[in-house]
């Protein structure tokens, strides 16, 4: 699991039977005390669970999670993405209304906000130094059914120190240390198996989490690194990551802000909405594209593509 803390943004990613959403009210109070009393955007997402019956409140099911979030936010939208009889993915997001969302439980009366604050918030909402980088992009690769040989690297070995020492061994052995050679890396090998990595490069991050056991093996890769070259760069990153884990199945999600979409010619805007699915498929021999979905949200384009290996 990982947490990334920016002055104005928090990313929390937790696996197992953790109860992430239970921390949200605390998180909002902490932010308010830090001078951040309004949520501008919120994204909550997860892949379908492998063992949903083991989860705890408020994660006993998607409807429970949505109800929990709806109790906190006035403007929320819930989506199910992908095939419901196969791997699918859930998303809840709040769209900024007049550049802010009001928290029901914390700021009960939106009109109580001073006009000065509202004007300042609107003015600064587009300030990339403070809030939204113009080309904000998050790529997530979720992989299952990892190749058994590839998964061996993520086991604790006899006589090996676990923790950071084992993590460094995994970094080098797998090539994860070559994703961004300039990045500051913090990796950890669990005993008897499992691995987590946080890496930072300036204001950007990537993070990897691996559960290697056969039958329920899983690996995730997520980054907001700037990828020069657009969709082609995304497909190259996907190939690099997939080559490390060699999953039987994987999905790619891309969230991309399009601050300037309205100024582009229509055909370029349409092209920009397309996910890198075809580029990825062309770069990966043996994996077939099984699903491809595109959404356009307020200020963001979202692409989802899933692939399966013909083993």
């Amino acid at each position, binding site marked *: *699991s*990982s*947490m*990334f*803390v*920016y002055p*104005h*943004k*928090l*990313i*929390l*990613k*937790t*696996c*197992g*039977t*953790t*109860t*992430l959403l*239970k*921390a949200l009210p*605390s*998180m909002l109070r*902490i932010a308010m005390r*830090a*001078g*951040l*009393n*309004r*949520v501008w*955007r*919120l*994204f909550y997402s997860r*892949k379908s*669970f*492998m063992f949903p019956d083991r989860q705890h409140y408020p994660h006993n099911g998607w409807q429970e999670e949505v109800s929990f979030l709806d109790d906190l936010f006035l403007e929320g939208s819930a989506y199910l993405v992908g095939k419901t009889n196969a791997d699918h993915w859930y998303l809840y997001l709040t769209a900024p209304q007049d550049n802010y969302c009001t928290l029901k439980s914390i700021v009960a009366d939106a009109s109580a906000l001073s006009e000065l*604050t509202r004007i300042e*918030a609107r003015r600064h909402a587009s300030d990339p130094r*403070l809030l*939204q980088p113009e080309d904000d992009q998050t790529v997530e690769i979720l992989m299952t059914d990892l190749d058994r040989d590839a998964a061996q690297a993520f086991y604790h070995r006899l006589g090996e120190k676990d*923790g*950071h020492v084992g993590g460094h061994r995994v970094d080098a052995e797998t090539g994860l240390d070559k994703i961004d050679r300039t990045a*500051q*890396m*913090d*990796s*950890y090998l669990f005993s008897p198996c*499992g691995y*987590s990595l*946080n*890496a*930072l490069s300036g204001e950007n*991050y990537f*993070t990897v*989490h691996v*559960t290697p056991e056969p039958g*329920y*093996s*899983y690996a*995730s890769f997520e980054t907001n690194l700037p990828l020069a070259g657009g969709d082609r760069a995304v497909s190259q990153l996907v190939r690099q990551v997939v080559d490390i884990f060699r999953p039987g199945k994987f999905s790619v999600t891309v969230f991309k802000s399009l601050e300037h979409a309205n100024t582009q010619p229509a055909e370029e805007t349409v092209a920009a909405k397309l996910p890198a699915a075809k580029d990825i498929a062309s770069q990966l021999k043996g994996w077939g594209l099984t699903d491809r979905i595109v959404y356009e949200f307020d200020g963001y384009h979202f692409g989802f593509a899933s692939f399966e290996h013909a083993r």
Partner: protein
Amino acid sequence: AEGAFEGPEKLLEVWFLPNADAVHAQCKGTFAEHGLRAVRREVWDAMLDVVRCKVLSVIRTESVDAYLLSE
């Protein structure tokens, strides 16, 4: 699958807007030293207890703090 570990993660990303005081701090170039990054470690620890996670290690750059968590 007795004892099997649930790999797929829950992922939350929240972007906040500052209040007027924080905006003024940002205008003076000091916001990066404030905001969420100024929150004390024990406050995050208490929040993460609710999630059932513990901090294993932390790395930082000028822009962001990364916490590696248990579970």
